[in-house]
């Protein structure tokens, strides 16, 4: 699957593409929503490591505008449930991710992103 938890970690790795290579931009996506178990301990621990702006922008590309532009100071259950939905319940099934810098296209098929590169593209 490509959920936003994974998307927030992926970056373009084409040879020489070292800056502005994150976050990858979604293109022509089909998404599915699936309920996942809510785990507040996980979310509280993961929160400080999220690239927040990338998460907010990417969620908007997928049509979800529920996250605040700034990470809130007070972390309550309502916020964690919103975060849970955005990170773990939106599945990108088909489409692609495009590097904002070099425009390399990483296809997504049956929920699996293809991050393989040809020999000459490898960094």
């Amino acid at each position, binding site marked *: *699957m490509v959920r936003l938890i994974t998307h927030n970690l992926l970056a373009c790795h084409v040879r020489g593409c070292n800056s502005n290579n994150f976050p990858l931009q979604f293109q022509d996506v089909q998404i599915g929503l699936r309920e996942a178990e809510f785990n507040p301990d*996980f979310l509280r621990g993961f929160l400080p490591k999220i690239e927040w702006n990338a998460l907010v922008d990417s969620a908007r590309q997928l049509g979800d505008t529920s996250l605040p532009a700034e990470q809130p100071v007070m972390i309550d259950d309502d916020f964690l449930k919103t975060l849970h939905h955005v990170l773990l319940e939106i599945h990108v099934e088909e489409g692609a991710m495009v590097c904002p810098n070099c425009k390399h296209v990483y296809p997504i098929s049956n929920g699996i992103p293809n991050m393989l590169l040809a020999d000459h593209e490898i960094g």
Partner: protein
Amino acid sequence: MPSDVTTVSVSGNPDEYEDEHVHTVYDEIAGHFSSTRYKPWPIIAQFISSLPAGWVGLDSGTGNGKYLPLPLDRPGQLWTIGLDRSINLLRIAQTVGQKHREVVLGNVLDVPWRRGAFDYAISIATIHHLSTHERRKTAVKSLLQSISPDYGRALIYVWAMEQDSLSKRIIPGGQQTGETQVVTDKDKRGVDVFVPWVLKEPSSNRSNIPARHTSHQGTSPLTIMHESSAKAFNRFYHMFAAGELEQLVIEAAEDMNIQLGPKSTDSSINAGVSGIAVVQSGWERSNYYIELQRWRI
């Protein structure tokens, strides 16, 4: 002489060699292979159990994803993302443990991530499928570059020349043993072998194999027809010698310009110095393993 394992010498382009003797094989045998791989090894389960809630990890060479559901006693407190080169194994890993998992098609030589984005990484029974020393070192470097330079933790397992007496396999040049081997020679290298996988029935996945793989004629060692219904696939392995995995880590640290050893407590050391500590290493059930932790001052 057991019919099992035979030594080979690697030749040609290593990418193509691994495509033929590793990736294509796993794509063909994925279903059968997965049905035999379900039980996590104890040291790996312990390692993952020791990690705090909220950590995100990479399983580099996840195969059928059997480590993705861990820790079983507190599910959902960690997220492990599986990377593999075999799309058919990933399709199994995608729903391992009856839940949706995060999996990525990729090469363990690459770093398709924000550098240092993961809290931990494991690479279990994977690096031994790479066909040159240089590529095995690159895989270790890629793993270390994926985890936090401040505290990231890693665990690597590879197959050993020294096989458990309970193991069914006998490795040419290896020893049967029940104990950890003493490191004797830092330049000691393991042995390159084919380990066959016999499919009793024709694979249902054959139509997924790209044409260029099926176009090999008689000379290809990829498949050998045994009987009308059984087929043997030769998987490439580099069986590690004692001390060789540690040596790979030493060379990877050198290449990355980071110190190897425990975090320095010397206050005269400049800020920004980084290193990697060996938490534990050893031999378990026919495998060598090493656990590492990155640190930065």
